[in-house]
Each structure stands twice: as structure tokens, then as C-alpha cells.
């Protein structure tokens, strides 16, 4: 049981930052929306329909982003592998598909980047390519699982800016999971905070407060604001920073969990 009694609704064109410690169910929630995780009770509804596998209305960027770090293939070929990649038969890169790929690359400014080989671009550049891949098929909802992981602050900013632009230009809803709120704090419309099997959705100022987070975690949580930055502390420990540290030893995990209530996305 990862999530229980979680119920919330996300509007069209909304940029949601999903926060929470490791194992709080961020990935599970995304996988549930993709129909990959069975829900033991309640329902997950995406764009008015029950969650099913292979929903083309959802763009997804998994946390485990693939096994091509040693490949010299071009970014274009990697992105293109997702264009109709679930269909049987031989790959067909017809003019319409190529136009679609170019459009997706242009949306994140990666047209030139895609000509280079995967092992010679930086982590931030790779993230941009994979973000463009998630746009193939013109989804209405974008699920980005920890796109800021292991990026330096400059690249973090550029990824968040691209996500903002995608929301504004394409009017799509984005759920963007992260360990730390601060890189997202000015970009997101609302924050979805997961903890202790529960979730709270609301404006940053409403959710990231001592009382709300203390109720969520069932322990004393303090929120400290220093200028523009927010720190969430449990006792003496910085909750978000601690969660971030854990991540490097558990790069790949599947937290298969269940939800009791519905998440209406």
C-alpha cells in the first residue's frame, strides 16, 4: 500500500509540481495514471476516461530513462523510436511522422541537438530530447518523473522553463515530480504533496505550511522561508534534501502500490 485515500482533480493546462519523499508514491501515481499499476479500490480517471495502458493522450518521461548511455546513436533515432513505436511491423518514417518529430524537437529547441550522438551531449540536453519525445502524439497530459534529477541548477532552470512554455503554448496539463520545491516554486500553478500514503493538492502557500505538512506526515514539520526559498524541516532534518540524498543509491525502483480513492486527472 503506497497511497491510500488519495483524491484530487487536476485541470487542463495546469502545471502541477508533485513533491514528496522517496517511496511516497510519486512514480506509482504516474504509473497508475498510465494504467500500469492496478488500483485496488476507487478509480483513476484521465481526461474523463478510466486509465488504460497505451493511452496516447498522455506523454510520459519515466525516471529510468533508458539504457543508451553508451550508444553512439543520434538523439534523433532515439526520439524517433517512440513515434508509433508500439505498433507492429517495420518502422515507417514517412513524411508526416518526420514532421511530427521535427515539431516535437522544435518545441524544446532540440532540432540541432538531435543530430548529435547520445554519448556526447550533457544530461540537461538529453533531458530536453526525452521531453520532446514525450510530446510525440500531441498529448493532453504530460507526466514528467523527476526530470531535474542529477542536473546542475542552470540545466534545472532550463528544463522548468521548457515545461512552462509547453503549458503556455500547448495548453496541456503537466505533472512534474521533484524532490525539491525551490526550482519549481515560481513556475507551478499548484503543488501536489504526497506523504504517508496521503496527498494534498493546492496552491504553494496553502500546502507548504507547517500545519498542513505536519498533518500529512503525522509528525511535527516546520516550514522555513528564506527570501524566495522554502525549506521543509522535520525536527532538525531538511526533508527534501534528505530525500534527494537517498536517490543516488536507488536509481531504479518500482514501487507497485495501490490506491483506495480515485485520482481524477
Amino acid at each position: 500500500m503506497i497511497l491510500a485515500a488519495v483524491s484530487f482533480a487536476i485541470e487542463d493546462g495546469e502545471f502541477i509540481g508533485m513533491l514528496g519523499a522517496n517511496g511516497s508514491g510519486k512514480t506509482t501515481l504516474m504509473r497508475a495514471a498510465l494504467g500500469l499499476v492496478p488500483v485496488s479500490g476507487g478509480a483513476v480517471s484521465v481526461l474523463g476516461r478510466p486509465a488504460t495502458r497505451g493511452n496516447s493522450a498522455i506523454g510520459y518521461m519515466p525516471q529510468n530513462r533508458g539504457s543508451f548511455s553508451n550508444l553512439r546513436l543520434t538523439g534523433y533515432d532515439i526520439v524517433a523510436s517512440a513515434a508509433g513505436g508500439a505498433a507492429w511491423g517495420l518502422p515507417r518514417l514517412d513524411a508526416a511522422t518526420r514532421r511530427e518529430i521535427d515539431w516535437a524537437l522544435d518545441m524544446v529547441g532540440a532540432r540541432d541537438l538531435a543530430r548529435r550522438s547520445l554519448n556526447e551531449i550533457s544530461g540537461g540536453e538529453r533531458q530536453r530530447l526525452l521531453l520532446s519525445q514525450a510530446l510525440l502524439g500531441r498529448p493532453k497530459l504530460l507526466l514528467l518523473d523527476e526530470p531535474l534529477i542529477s542536473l546542475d541548477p542552470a540545466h534545472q532552470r532550463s528544463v522548468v522553463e521548457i515545461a512552462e512554455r509547453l503549458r503556455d503554448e500547448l495548453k496541456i496539463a503537466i505533472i512534474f515530480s521533484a524532490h525539491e520545491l525551490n526550482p519549481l516554486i515560481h513556475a507551478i500553478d499548484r503543488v501536489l504533496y504526497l506523504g504517508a500514503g496521503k496527498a494534498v493538492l493546492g496552491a504553494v502557500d496553502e500546502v507548504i505550511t507547517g500545519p498542513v505538512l505536519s498533518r500529512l506526515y503525522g509528525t511535527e514539520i516546520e516550514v522555513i522561508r528564506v527570501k524566495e526559498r522554502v525549506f521543509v524541516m522535520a525536527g532538525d532534518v531538511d526533508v527534501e534534501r534528505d530525500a534527494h540524498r537517498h536517490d543516488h543509491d536507488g536509481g531504479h525502483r518500482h514501487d507497485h502500490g495501490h490506491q483506495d480513492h480515485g485520482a481524477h486527472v
Partner: protein
Amino acid sequence: MTAAIVTIMAIRITAPMFDYDFMRTGFAAAGIVALLAGVVGFFLVLRGQTFAGHALSHVGFTGATGAVLFGLPPLAGLVGFTVLAGFAMGLLGEKLSERDVAIGMMLSLALGFGLLFLHFFTSYASQAAALLFGNVLGVDNQALVSLAILAVLSLIALGAIVRPLIFASLQSELAEAKGVPLRFVSTAFLMIVAVAVSECAQIVGVLLVFTLMVGPAAAALRFTRRLYAAVALSAALALAEAWGGLTLAFYSDWPVSFWITALSGLVYFASLVNWRVPGHGAAQAPTQP
């Protein structure tokens, strides 16, 4: 095999190599197998499952020796056994490439059983050498037809799954989310690999399957950065290495399998060198460890 080469030595002065029936058959067989191995092997390398391919070839040894013991053609035992093993491996799971201990144990066990079967037909010692190191010049017309049919069927099957296979190989989680049945694709692919491995074993033997399945594909992935160009190059390299090996063996009287492994190794290690040719795209890429 030695007998065949001695014959060549005696008459090669008077006749070019294509005057001999067994050379023509050998070239045809090596060509079919090399094309299949180059294409299927490419995806094996792309998926990081080369060790699984190696293990399948050892299972093939058991199948082939077992088949001979029961008076069946070795190719039937090879294909039957490896396809079954490929099916089992596919069902075991997606993360197969990480299970090197399990695969390694299976590999030893298979070779052990192969040895036991060999023990029962000691009169066929040359057959064992042919299975381990290949005997392309021993391929008869009937075997050639079998190789051709199996290769065509494998390539058709591969063509049917290649699109989700590429997607799943590069980004399995995303592919799963987009509705690719990962386990089915992986299992079907390993069964295709099993056929390709069995065919390779006919040419270079079960111990040297890597040389045609993995060598050309790994080199191709270093020579070009485009996916489909790499598939074509892998097949072309495998073909050149197989035919080159046959030709060199004809004129040198050294074993065919030796020459194929030598050429394959040469091409692979050449691909590791960072060629700095001005104006050549791939040459500008810095090699990152």
C-alpha cells in the same frame, strides 16, 4: 573437415574455388547465415543481451549432440533445443542481461550434458569438433534448404516485431507505458535469436557464435550513428567476414572458422580505434568511457 581441406590442397592449382560443389554450397550457406546473424545480432547488442545469445549457443550443443544420439539431424536438435531455451529465458524476465550467474550456470550445465551425450557416441568424435567449431564445408544441399527456410522465417518474424523491439530496447519503461507487451516482444525475440544462433553454429560452431552474432553488430554500432545504417552495416560486415573467411581458408588451408573469427576480431578492434578523418562526422565524436 581436415580431409576436405587436404582435397582442396591437392587440386586447387588447377581449378578456382567456385568449381567445387562444396565451395558453392559453403558460400551460399555462409551468406544466408551471415545475413541473419548480422541483423538479429544487431538487436542482441542493442539490447545488451549478448551473454544470453552465448548461453543459447551452448544449449544448442546439448540439443545437437542429443539429436545425433537419437539418430536425428543435428540442426533439428540445435533449433529445437535453443528455441525452447529462448522461450524459457524470455519468460524468466526482462532483466535477463543482469542475470549472468543464472545464465552462466545454465551454460555450463548445457555443455556438461552435451559432453555426456558425446560420451555415448565416441565413434563420432569429428562430429563434436564440427559442432564446437563449425563445418561450413560439410553443409549439404538438404541442410542448405533448411538454413534458407529458417532464415526467411526468422527474418519475417523479426520484421513483425522490430518496431516495438527497437522501442523496448532503447526505453523499456516508456515502451511499456505506450502499450508495448514487453514480455511477449522479449520472448519472441529470444526465440528468433535461438534460430540465428543455431544457424551460426553450423558455420562457425557453438563456441564461436559470438564472432558472427556480436562482432559485426558491435563494430557497426561504432562505425555509424544512424540506427538503420547500423543494421545494414552489421549484416554487410557479417557477410564480408563469412565470405572472406571461406576464401582465405580455401587458399591457405587453415580452418574456415579461424579466418572468420580473425576477420571479425580485426573489424571489431578496428572499430574501437578513434579514427580522426577530417570532415568525417563520426570521427569528431570524443570517445567517452
